[in-house]
C-alpha cells in the first residue's frame, strides 16, 4: 500500500523529491516553510523579503535535493540554504560592515519573566541578531558564519557571545543580577 505523504519521513520525501517528485517536495515545503520564513524574519528580513528568499531557498533546495542524505535534519539543511541566500542579498547592499556597537540596546528587564524570543531579538543590533540566529536558528558553526558573512571568526564569536548575553538578560531577568549568567544544561 502506498504510504501517504503525511506519514513519510523527511528523508524519504527528500529522496523522492530528488527524483523529481514535486508532490513530495510540496509536503516538505508545507512542513518547513514557516520555520524557514521565521528564521529569515528573525535574521531581520522584512516579511516580504523573507518570503521571497524562502521561496528561492526552496527552489534551490529542490534542485539540490540529491545532496541531502539525511545527515542532520531537512529543516536544518534548508535553513542553511535560506540563510546563505539572505546573506548574499544583504551583502549586495553592503549592510554588514564590521560595525562598532551602534545601538547598544537598553535592556529593560521584563518583570513578567519570559518574553517572546522575537521581541528579545529586537534588542540586539543587526549583526548580533544575524550571528545569533545563524548559530542557534540555522545551526551554523562559527567558521561557517564567518565565511558566509565575510567577517573575521573572532568578530563572529564576539557578536554571538554579546548577543546571547543580551538575550539571556532579556529572557531570564532573574539571572541578570550577577553579571554574566551561567546555565546548567
Amino acid at each position, binding site marked *: 500500500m502506498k504510504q501517504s505523504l503525511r506519514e513519510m519521513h523527511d528523508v524519504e520525501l527528500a529522496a523522492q523529491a530528488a527524483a523529481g517528485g*514535486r508532490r513530495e*517536495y*510540496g509536503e516538505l*515545503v*508545507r512542513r518547513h*516553510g*514557516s*520555520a524557514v*520564513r*521565521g528564521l529569515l524574519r*528573525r535574521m531581520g528580513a522584512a516579511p516580504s523579503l523573507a*518570503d521571497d528568499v*524562502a*521561496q528561492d531557498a*526552496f*527552489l*534551490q533546495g*529542490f*534542485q539540490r535535493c540529491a545532496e541531502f542524505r539525511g545527515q542532520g535534519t531537512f529543516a536544518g539543511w534548508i535553513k542553511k540554504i535560506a540563510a546563505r541566500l539572505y546573506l548574499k542579498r544583504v551583502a549586495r547592499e553592503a549592510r554588514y560592515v564590521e560595525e562598532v556597537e551602534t545601538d547598544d540596546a537598553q535592556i529593560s528587564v521584563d518583570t513578567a519573566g519570559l518574553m517572546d*524570543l522575537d521581541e528579545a531579538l529586537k534588542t540586539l543590533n543587526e549583526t548580533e541578531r544575524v550571528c545569533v*540566529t545563524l*548559530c*542557534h*536558528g540555522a545551526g551554523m*558553526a*562559527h567558521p561557517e558564519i564567518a565565511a558566509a558573512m565575510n567577517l573575521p571568526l573572532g568578530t563572529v564569536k564576539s557578536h*554571538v*557571545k554579546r548577543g*546571547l548575553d543580551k*538575550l*539571556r538578560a532579556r*529572557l*531570564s531577568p532573574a539571572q541578570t543580577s550577577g553579571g554574566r549568567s*551561567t*546555565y546548567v*544544561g
Partner: protein
Amino acid sequence: MSVDEYDPMIERLFAKTTPLPDEALFAAELAVRMEKRSRWRTLALTAAGVVGGGVAVREVVQFNFKSGAHQASSLSDSVRAVAATAQGATQSGLDGLGIGSFDLMSGSGMMAFWIVAGALFALLAAGAVKLSQDV
C-alpha cells in the same frame, strides 16, 4: 558552539516554530514558480538541443557527403543515398528554421565546424548552469 554558549532555553525557543497563517498560500506560490521554471528550463534546453543537434547533423552529413565525393570507393551507393536523403531532410528542416543557408564548410573546412560545435556546446553548458543556478 562552545559550552558556555549552549543554552537549552534559547535552543528551545529557536526550535519553536509558529505556523504562519499564509502557509498554504506560500506553498501554492512556490509550486507555481517551480512549474514555471521547469517549463522554461525544458523549453530552453529542448530548443538549444534541437538547433544544436540540427546544425551538427547537417555539418556531419555534409562533410561525409563531400568527402565521399572525393573518395568514391570508400562509400557504397546506398550509404551515399542515405546520407543524401538525410542531408536533404536536415537542409529542408534548417531552411524552415531560416538557418539553412549557412555553409560552414566553405571557409576553413572542419575548423569552422568544430568552432561552431564548440560554441554551441559552450552555450548549452552555460545555459544549463545558469538555469540550474536560477532554479
